[in-house]
């Protein structure tokens, strides 16, 4: 029997300090905790024997800041995964934050088999970096980037955030231009979203945060799309741009409802029609001893309705959208029997384009939530 593909996500929930915009599952910890966590993580991976039945096509080590923990731990974690079936051309990514990287570390990471780096640059303006709670400077990043290239990483993603408080259009232009001059293979750009529970949210509540307005937000986004396109980056997803052939395999798994298995604190999985996630309680995770039954805290077997909805709203994040034929085959239903009004409405409003595929127009990408919500049944 042919094995199906799976992507692996590994969560490292640690950071040196919390950035002001971040509501992700991350916190500060010490070396002892790193080691303890790594041991449990490896137990979790090893005890998930079901993984034997899949081919691993991508691994993504995310966080938090995975590069904060000793790189030998990263190696041990990867070794645990390598015990399963791994594709020869698997994409293996680690998220890395400037300020936690050295030439040595990068060299080691490369030697463990990691072939893709995703660096959280966010901005190349030191004042902004400070104001959003980053621990690095522009200069540190440039040094890290140079080192990464020299140790042999040729598939690098740079993460950028726009619409940061007090950010001027000219600063965003400068950041983009400088980033492009480095010629990375992949660029992600996210507009800042104020999330509850962040430092920014607290500042906003107290009236101490000067957010950019929607007009400037869109201006920045449109500028990014334009200049990236001119420089050979194709927008393959709402927030992701890549040189041809360097689209993130792991990312695409999420949008196309392929299998992925997450390990670690609060990690999410979608495997054979079931969505599940691990506990976000650190102590509970550490006390689970890696036993799946003790650390899983959410599980939902998707109904056909769930699957149809998710196929649509996830697929619409991709620039190429969804294939009508794929839909009809996958669900053994005609898409128009289900969505004829929704398609008509959004087409009339100029939010989607319909060919043999359905995809968001530029206007549709601006208010993608509105369109996606419409596709919920």
């Amino acid at each position, binding site marked *: 029997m042919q094995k199906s593909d799976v992507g692996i996500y590994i969560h490292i929930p640690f950071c040196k300090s919390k950035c002001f915009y971040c509501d992700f599952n991350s916190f500060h910890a010490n070396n002892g905790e790193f080691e303890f966590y790594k041991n449990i993580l490896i137990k979790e991976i090893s005890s998930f024997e079901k993984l034997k039945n899949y081919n691993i096509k991508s691994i993504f080590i995310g966080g938090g800041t995975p590069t904060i923990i000793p790189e030998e731990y990263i190696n041990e974690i990867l070794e645990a995964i390598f015990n399963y079936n791994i594709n020869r051309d698997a994409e293996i990514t680690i998220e890395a934050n400037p300020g936690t990287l050295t030439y040595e570390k990068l060299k080691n990471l490369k030697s463990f088999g990691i072939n893709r780096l995703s660096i959280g640059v966010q901005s190349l303006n030191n004042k902004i970096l400070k104001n959003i709670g980053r621990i690095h400077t522009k200069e540190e990043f440039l040094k890290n980037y140079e080192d990464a290239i020299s140790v042999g990483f040729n598939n690098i993603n740079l993460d950028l955030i726009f619409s940061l408080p007090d950010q001027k259009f000219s600063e965003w232009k400068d950041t983009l231009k400088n980033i492009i001059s480095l010629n990375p293979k992949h660029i992600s750009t996210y507009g800042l979203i104020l999330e509850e529970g962040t430092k920014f949210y607290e500042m906003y509540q107290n009236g101490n945060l000067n957010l950019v307005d929607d007009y400037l937000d869109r201006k920045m986004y449109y500028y990014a799309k334009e200049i990236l396109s001119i420089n050979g980056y194709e927008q393959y997803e709402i927030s992701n741009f890549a040189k041809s052939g360097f689209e993130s395999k792991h990312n695409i798994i999420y949008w196309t409802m392929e299998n992925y298995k*997450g390990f670690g604190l609060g*990690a999410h999985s979608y495997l054979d029609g079931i969505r599940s996630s691990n506990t976000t309680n650190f102590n509970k995770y550490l006390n689970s001893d890696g036993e799946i039954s003790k650390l899983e805290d959410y599980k939902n077997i998707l109904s056909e309705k769930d699957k149809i909805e998710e196929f649509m709203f996830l697929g619409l994040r991709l620039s190429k959208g969804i294939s009508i034929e794929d839909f009809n085959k996958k669900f053994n239903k005609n898409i128009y029997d289900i969505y004829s009004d929704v398609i008509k409405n959004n087409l009339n409003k100029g939010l989607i384009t319909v060919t043999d595929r359905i995809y968001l127009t530029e206007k549709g990408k601006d*208010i993608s939530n*509105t369109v996606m919500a419409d596709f919920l049944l």
Partner: protein
Amino acid sequence: MPENRQKYIRNFSIIAHIDHGKSTLADRLIQKSGLLTEREMQEQVLDNMDLERERGITIKAQAVRLIHKDKEGNEYILNLIDTPGHVDFNYEVSRSLAACEGALLVVDAAQGVEAQTLANVYLAIDNNLEVVPIINKIDLPSANPENVIKEIEDIIGIVAEDAPLISAKADINIDQVFDKIIDSVPAPNGDENAPLKALIFDSFYDAYKGVIVFIRVVDGKVKKGTKIKFMATNKEFEVVDVGFFGPGRFISTDELQAGDVGYLTASIKNVRDTRIGDTVTESNNPTNTPFAGYKKVNPMVYCGIFPADGSKYPDLRDALEKLQLNDASLYFEAETSVALGFGFRCGFLGLLHLEIIQERLEREYNLDLVMTTPSVIYNIYMTDGSMIKLSNPSDLPDVTKIQKMEEPIVKAEIILPTEYIGTIMELCQERRGEYVTMEYLEETRATLTYKMPLNEIIYDFFDVLKSRSRGYASFDYELIGYEESDLVKLDIMVNREVVDALSFIVHRSNAYERGRKICAKLKKEISRHQFEIPIQASIGNKIIARETISALRKDVLSKCYGGDITRKKKLLEKQKEGKKRMRQIGSVDVPQSAFMSVLKLDED
């Protein structure tokens, strides 16, 4: 008791301001009649609807029969007919009072006479009822019975010096109340041999027995098999059962006779056949003197009620029909709104009545409603000499064809502690009130009388009055007529389309401020769309206020952390759920809360 049977019957009601102890006294009288054991004694037996408990007021008239032995051992039948205490239910009070020969006036020994009590006392006096004052709560440290007795004598003009001083709660001097009822309330004196003449004072629908009709027999008799006729509706039925009201239950009996209060059933399917105030008589031997004193009540306040979910329209109709069975003063007819779809134009006695119906529809019938701004009835005089009674602002004719408009005016009486006079006078001025008089009831309390347009008090006057007087002012009003007024229709436009459900009629002097407030409120309620949305208030073609909802340029989810799809989906679902509850005005989605929000403009 053959010929002097009626000598041992007393029919009475209790008049009291909210919280002055009417229900407690009723409970106490029931308990003392020995018809109910302690265990059976439900707290406040007379108030049996949830809503009444919560609001502390009695909505529907109900009756109970008490058996009392006096000191000589004579057994009396005392029929207590309960009445609502609020001004909105004037008519319900009047029909209950008409079934009685006397009324107990219960006054709180600490609070004294209140505005609403006064209105009901005058109603009782108009109905030739013997008013028996009772001073309650004499056990309170702040009780001042001498003052209250003087107040009753001064203000109402009845003798109160021998009024029983009681505490219904602490069971003090309740015997004196029984003695007073027997000594002071006249016995009925109907003719048992005359043709049947009975008054309907309430009715309600029972799934098993059909409509249960509450009657007071004035002349003649009625029993199982009697062929009866309701004289106003001209409907005929054969009586299936008659009986009395035991506490908490019906007690079937052979026959009701002149002087009795009880019920009859006759397989009546529709409450509309049993108009409260109608006369029940024998089909083949009708009375020559049906009751004439009952007028058809006219609603004073109208508003549109629409189901939030359009498919629930038939359910809403059913619910209104059922409520109307027991509430002759509720009026409704089908209405169609461009903005809200199919619904009903409903008429109410007042705002409290409106709120109670709304709550009952929502609670008892599980309906989600959208209501439009309440309106009074305006007289519109046309240039061609005709006159239109307008209860729906959307129906206002072309202004060029209108000669003049009149609005209903009420006399408002406010009883309040003197320290709030300034504040409340200011409130009355704001609401276009015209000062009439002020009278001191005692050193620290006064009655303020104002002439006011009804449309100024139907929104939130009562709430504002209460809050500005810290709850101490009480308020009553009665319609005194119509007056010409400089009225305009204010239209609200969303994205340049008039929203019919938001139109209302207002005095020109208030139009600008209200227009501004409504536009501001709607701006908060309506979320941004792909395009800019102007919200405008206009009088005719003239725009008097404007707000703009800027276009939605961006609505994007943030980074998808580690494949957490569930969280994203929840966000989208929330968005979708919000949209479901929207009304479509042209290409704009308006949340239902927007229609309600304009009713409470003074809140923030």
